[in-house]
């Protein structure tokens, strides 16, 4: 199937069995393909956005109507209706609160169809995982243009009747097939095969058959299981570019009721996420990037207003939340008026006042930029790892966030985006291999990007660079010692200009003058640790951070 066919089929199945499939997570930036797909949605669409107040979802008191009359007027929330098509825009910014409500609505099977538009650019920007897990279909329209759009039949708005869905015969092998496939693809959640089965049933019903066949399994596997894959099975054939079509002789040889695993896998390979293939060689799972809701939650630490509260916040000059105050005052109006106040307009007492709250905690983010090049590996990569581990347990005590970047060979890798999950950091660190050149500039640059991203989220980043300083790979990936040193200096100046605090730790055998120079450009601190052990290293950093 082409990506476009995949997307339209997913949409069709969603509308065929909304209660079973939940919906569709569409990863795409705005573009013609997305517009064309959304135009296919039949019936009315309720648009949601992540900054939606909870009342819009669940209903609440209508302040103005209640004040003008003497009866309480409530407005209905979107989720209180049934069988709605909900379109969640900018789903990657959806806060956990809204996500949990949507999840609950989906779990209750009220027939809502949720289409989540995930407009994330970075890999760590995605839907809240709990919500993503409940949507059967994950489709990406990345890179699709006008020419990829094929004309499609209109989608029926009415779901297929439950009776028809339930009547679908479902052989046991098909079920085992789906579960086995989910295991092979490293999908942990049991919701995935369950959803795949529902999707397969819906596909059968749509095609007006009454028995599950291998074709339905294939569609379900491609649409539901493939995008969730976290690993490619070990017995991958040599040619990854093999055509998606199954060789006819292979099917002829095996006259089985169910499809053999290899054929299934082969068929869905095209549907696997592209970055999975890129990563599969380096033995890193997609799971690690699932900082998801956690990362986003910490990202909203500053500026995002929290629900208003009645207690006076600690800071000075608190701001009154007018709407929340009115909402709190509305119920009392009749009572207060009865007590003899004839003033026109709502009567507001101090106890009604609700204050806006913002959380202004600026958490510290430690960005570890670790040199994993050959020279460092020889010298003291293990010690650097040990030091980082000790720092990590201190970070845990302080509830700091950490990010881990390693540079070696031709470039730098963001091994772990800012997270609080220490266990993950440690695991990544332990897996960190050594060897190759020293692209110091690339490492610094990535560290700078991470730090700037953290700034925007309201964290205060500290860059900790552990290296032996002999930069020999330039920014463009060419081995050129002179150019490399210049690049490093330039990037360092950039880091300093961004106002990122930094600490340079020289892990070489002898103190490296170039590194001291680098620390100067960074306007950071420099510590040289010839022959120091991990504990000594950590003490240095702690001292530098405190001071």
């Amino acid at each position: 199937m082409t990506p476009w066919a995949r997307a339209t089929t997913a949409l069709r199945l969603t509308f065929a069995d909304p209660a079973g499939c939940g919906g569709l997570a569409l990863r795409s930036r705005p573009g013609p393909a997305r517009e064309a797909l959304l135009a296919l949605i039949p019936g009315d669409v309720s648009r949601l956005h992540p900054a939606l107040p909870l009342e819009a979802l669940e209903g609440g008191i209508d302040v103005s109507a209640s004040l003008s009359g003497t009866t309480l007027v409530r407005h209905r929330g979107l989720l209180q209706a049934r069988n709605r098509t909900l379109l969640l825009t900018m789903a990657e910014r959806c806060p956990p609160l809204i996500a949990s409500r949507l999840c609950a609505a989906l779990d209750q099977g009220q027939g809502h169809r949720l289409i989540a538009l995930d407009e994330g650019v970075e890999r760590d920007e995605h839907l809240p995982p709990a919500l993503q897990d409940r949507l059967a279909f994950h489709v990406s329209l990345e890179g699709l243009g006008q020419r990829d759009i094929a004309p499609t039949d209109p989608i029926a708005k009415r779901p297929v009747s439950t009776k028809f869905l339930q009547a679908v015969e479902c052989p046991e092998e098909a079920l085992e097939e789906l579960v086995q496939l989910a295991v092979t693809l490293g999908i942990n959640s049991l919701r995935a095969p369950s959803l795949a089965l529902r999707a397969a049933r819906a596909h059968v019903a749509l095609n007006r058959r009454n028995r599950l066949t291998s074709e339905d399994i294939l569609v379900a596997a491609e649409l539901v299981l493939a995008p969730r894959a976290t690993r490619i099975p070990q017995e991958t054939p040599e040619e990854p570019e093999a055509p998606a079509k199954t060789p006819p002789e292979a099917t002829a040889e095996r006259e089985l009721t169910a499809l053999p695993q290899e054929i299934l896998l082969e068929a869905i390979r095209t549907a696997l996420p592209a970055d999975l293939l890129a990563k599969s060689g380096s033995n890193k799972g997609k799971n690690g990037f699932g900082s998801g809701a956690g990362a986003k939650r910490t990202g909203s630490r500053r500026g995002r207003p929290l629900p208003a509260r009645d207690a006076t916040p600690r800071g000075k000059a608190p701001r009154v939340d007018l709407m929340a105050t009115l909402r709190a005052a509305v119920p009392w109006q009749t009572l207060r008026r009865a007590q003899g106040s004839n003033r026109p307009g709502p009567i507001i007492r101090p106890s009604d006042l609700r204050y806006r709250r913002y959380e202004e905690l600026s958490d510290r983010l430690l960005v570890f930029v670790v040199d994993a090049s050959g020279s460092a590996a020889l010298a003291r990569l293990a010690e650097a790892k040990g030091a980082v581990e000790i720092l990590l347990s201190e970070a845990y005590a302080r509830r700091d966030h950490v990010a881990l970047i390693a540079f070696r060979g031709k470039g730098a890798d963001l091994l772990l985006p800012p997270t609080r999950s220490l266990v993950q950091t440690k695991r990544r660190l332990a897996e960190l291999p050594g060897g190759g050149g020293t692209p110091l500039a690339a490492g610094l640059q990535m560290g700078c990007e991470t730090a700037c991203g953290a700034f925007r989220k309201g964290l205060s980043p500290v860059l900790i660079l552990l290296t032996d300083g002999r930069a020999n790979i330039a920014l463009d990936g060419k081995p050129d010692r002179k150019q490399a040193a210049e690049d490093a200096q330039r990037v360092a100046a950039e880091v300093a200009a961004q106002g990122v605090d930094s600490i340079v730790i020289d892990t070489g055998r002898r103190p490296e003058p170039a590194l001291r120079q680098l620390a100067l450009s960074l306007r950071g601190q420099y510590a040289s640790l010839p022959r120091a052990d991990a504990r000594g290293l950590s003490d240095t950093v702690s001292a530098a951070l405190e001071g």
Partner: protein
Amino acid sequence: MKQPFPFSAIVGQQDMKRAMLLTAIDPSIGGVLVFGDRGTGKSTAVRALAALLPPIKAVKACPVYGERIEDCPAWAGVTKKATHQIPTPVVDLPLGASEDRVTGALDIEKALTKGEKAFQPGLLAAANRGYLYIDEVNLLEDHIVDLLLDVAQSGENVIEREGLSIRHPARFVLVGSGNPEEGELRPQLLDRFGLSVDVTSPTEVAERVEVIKRRDAYENDHAAFMLRWQAEDATLRDRILKARKTLKKLKTPDSALEDVAALCIRLGSDGLRGELTLLKAARAYAAWRDDTALTRSHIRATAPLALRHRLRRDPLDDAGSGTRVTRIVEDVLG
């Protein structure tokens, strides 16, 4: 409304099921914390538990489900003694629920239309004598957490607002679930849960197939499926009721107390809540097994559930505290 998935039809997840059954036998154990990956049946189990629990006797029209008329708070204005059987309440506390919704507040409807000052009970009242379930408990807002801690400790909900001064009993079993990847739980709240369980997806393919098969049957062959499993649920229910009776007569030898104490000292768990919970859990387990006295085997079986979350945490130990507890249990109890 569809009936929830039957408790007895949940495949595997022995720890989680056991922990929930123990709290059903002795609610004073103080709740269960279920941590695990998505799609491992956490919410399913809680909903199933609601259907499994034996009904309770409550005064009609009592907002907090008092057993006798004396238990009903004065503000509710209950006058009739008549009681009826109701299912054990299992109440969902949604993330982002407002304080008013949790504790209860002025009845807006009545205040506006009739000008009456009436109290509208909140979730805590509805959860009295039952279960309070918080999905994604680790994402719960701090001020709600504080409030819950307070009520869970005192067993009473006190509301002091303009013109309202109200208190009512709020004794409930806290059940929390969450995914540790999305954030951790504050130690104070952690300690408040009696038992904790880590759930993972089953590793056996056959077991997974069974899960999907049952789920499919539940959805597509509902009537027959429920008929098949409701009988099993009824057996479980009878066993819970029987265990509650056995629990009252269960003997606790001093040696068992010493074992429990030795275990907790060795684990270095803070406070005495660990000992108390372990003792209660072990007793409930013994009652479940229909034994007459508490023995080491009961303690051994419940120690990981009751103690795992009370250890001083080593942030870098990814082996899990469960294994640590098991190891020390083997050391101490032999």
